[in-house]
């Protein structure tokens, strides 16, 4: 790959017409990066919330909610009351607690919104109950456990007057929104393949001595309570492809197995999946619990460039050697990734335009102040509150989540059957 910093500026000015097209498209994309609305405070009184499910994910959301002026958590619900102690410590408040979601909906008349952070088996029923009770709903991914449940939930959400948002958090993440703008300028060329992985070196087993509680506490480890690594982690990364490319999968196949954590679980501890999309796009996906090397990333591979999104916090652009120079990259920060040098795609860097030698140049300037960013969970919760108070379009609708949930569920089934499974269009319709 050429050393961009050494290119003679006169040389790239020579490619006037092609470069100018690239410049103006890029300038348009970069001109107004900061989402101004995202910086204004959310108007109106705090949203009165009930949280159903205060396990690991519920606690993560609570630790954000306790710092958000738009959130007023008035009720917690969990079928395993021992979880309340740690949840209350994080929340630093004294909401009412319930063991039954229906009871919470009945008793808490002032509730405006419900967050469903239970295992996916309960998502459809609880989400629909909350909608029926006239509440806004934030439902953690996966939308639901079976395709039928997903369709029911999507129909209910469409018919409801309240907000229904699904927790595919990348759709609310400024980095991912920023990268999408780049991709829309055609910088990738044609997208040919998406490689993604979620690798960690953990068993995911939670401590449980009482055999009767095993399925409640370790629901992730069993096929009848979990859609496995595809349902829990792969779904988020597949959702990215559906969102960015507006495509739905055509067919899927894969393998899985329990190769390391032989502790009585039935859910696979590793999956290797291939998904075929229209227009020659393919996804190659692996999730495993035996290694943390390179962790979690999505790599969007195109004919002109590839974009690497790492750990939901960093984006790097790698241009193919024969791709057209865009100009602004001379001023952008670079970072090494293995043997390659990538251009950092930074949602926080400010950009300004300048005319030099009759040509429009876009320069990238780093913010001088130290950085503060919001976590992905804070971003998606803020989007939820903005949809409620400001009627902002929902970050991830039930219809969008339906596509991802069906893809994940069918992928999970293809792995179990070790077969190639074709999707049909009806599966994605509510």
């Amino acid at each position: 790959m050429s050393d961009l910093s050494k290119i003679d500026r006169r040389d790239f000015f020579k490619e006037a017409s092609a470069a100018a097209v690239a410049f103006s498209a890029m300038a348009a994309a970069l001109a107004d990066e900061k989402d101004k609305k995202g910086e204004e405070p959310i108007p109106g009184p705090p949203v009165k919330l009930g949280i159903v499910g205060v396990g690991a994910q519920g606690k993560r959301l609570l630790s954000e909610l306790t710092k958000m002026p738009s959130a007023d958590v008035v009720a917690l619900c969990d079928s395993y009351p021992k979880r309340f102690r740690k949840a209350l410590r994080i929340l630093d408040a004294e909401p009412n607690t319930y063991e039954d979601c229906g009871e919470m909906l009945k008793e808490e008349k002032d509730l405006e919104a419900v967050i469903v952070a239970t295992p996916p088996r309960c998502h459809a029923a609880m989400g629909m109950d909350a909608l029926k009770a006239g509440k806004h709903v934030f439902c953690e991914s996966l939308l639901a456990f079976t395709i039928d449940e997903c369709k029911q939930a999507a129909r209910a959400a469409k018919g409801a007057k309240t907000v229904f948002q699904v927790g595919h958090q990348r759709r609310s993440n400024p980095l991912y929104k920023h990268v999408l703008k780049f991709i829309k300028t055609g910088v990738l060329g044609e997208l040919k393949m998406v490689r993604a992985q979620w690798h960690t070196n953990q068993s995911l087993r939670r401590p449980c001595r009482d055999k009767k509680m095993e399925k409640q506490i370790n629901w992730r480890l069993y096929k009848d309570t979990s859609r496995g690594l595809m349902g829990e982690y792969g779904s988020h990364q597949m959702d990215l492809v559906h969102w960015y490319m507006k495509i739905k999968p055509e067919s899927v196949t894969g393998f899985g197995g329990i190769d390391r954590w032989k502790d009585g679980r039935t859910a696979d501890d590793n999956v290797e999946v291939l998904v075929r999309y229209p227009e020659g796009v393919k996804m190659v996906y692996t999730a495993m619990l035996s290694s943390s090397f390179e962790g979690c990333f999505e790599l969007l591979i195109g004919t002109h460039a590839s974009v690497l999104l790492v750990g939901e916090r960093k984006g790097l652009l790698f241009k193919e050697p024969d791709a057209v120079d865009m100009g602004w990259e001379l001023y952008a920060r670079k970072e090494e990734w293995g043997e390659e040098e990538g251009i950092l795609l930074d949602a926080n860097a400010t950009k300004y335009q300048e005319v030099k030698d009759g040509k429009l140049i876009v320069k990238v300037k780093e913010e001088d102040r130290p950085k503060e960013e919001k976590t992905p969970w804070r971003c998606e919760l803020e989007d939820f509150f903005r949809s409620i108070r400001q009627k902002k379009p929902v970050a991830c609708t039930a219809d969008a989540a339906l596509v991802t949930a069906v893809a994940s569920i069918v992928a999970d089934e293809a792995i179990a059957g070790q077969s190639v499974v074709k999707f049909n269009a009806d599966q994605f319709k509510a």
Partner: protein
Amino acid sequence: MADPVAVKLARPAMATFFELLLWGEDRDYLRSVGEEALDEIEWLEQQLSLFIPTSEVAAVNVRAGQGPVRVGVELFQLLRHAADLTVRTGGAFDVTAGLLSECWGFHVGQVRIPVDAELQGVLDLVGMAKVLLSDDERTVRFERDGMFIDLGGIGKGSAVERAAGTIREYDIGGALVHGGTSTIYGVGTPPDRDAWPIGILHPLEPDRRLGCVRLCDQALSTSKGSGRSVRIDGEQYGHLIDPRTGRPANGLLSAAAICPSPTEADALSTAFAILGIEETEDYCDRHPGVGAIVMFRPDNDGPVRTKVIGAVAEEAYSELEPAHL
């Protein structure tokens, strides 16, 4: 009763590795307890790290100079604890003192001596008393814009403490937890012994063991003193800045603190390295639950000497090889 089994787990966090050793009856159960403890450590790092842009500390450092910043319970309590430690150590431990290290060029590895006016300007931005904590609102505010908080001197200790607390909630035989080997905590004892034996290394020759500390529900934390000293204009300067004066502290090669709380041990080891022998003795006199082990070279020359301070340290430390205990 079956023979006990042990499980070892590790995870990177806070620019080092945290390691847990747990022993008990059931390997899968031990692992699940260990993973929960490691998750807590990772979670704490996400809140406390200066270098993670989504952390609460990052939010405070960016905004607290302009107005109060709401933080979570963990960070708030830790800041209260840090403030209390600043008072108790007479200002030797202070999480706002990072600006002084920057001022002396330590963070870029190019040490230089700041002029007095510059140093005074930085000292105006240092001091835990200038960090205003509101219990009612759970907010943090800096009296002056430009201040910043670095929890490096207490973060590993608090993570070890959190991990140990999690482990204690479950019924296992015992455990050893450490962060980067600089802060170590023994939960209970190993099987068939009455304490976890921890080797104390020579401050200048890392392959040489000088002694051993026995830990049972106790923490040991070690701080380097003038270990990375630099010579400028003929004067020797250590890398540890005394927040009270803004100038490098001199004298001790290393200082270790022993007490029941890993968070306190972490902070106190830094404080002791700055306070020196007499003030450390004074501190341990006033706080009987705390002990110290300091290493120094009299007149910066000759063999390394060890001084054991306080009954807690006297009981835990010995110069024998651990195998002989």
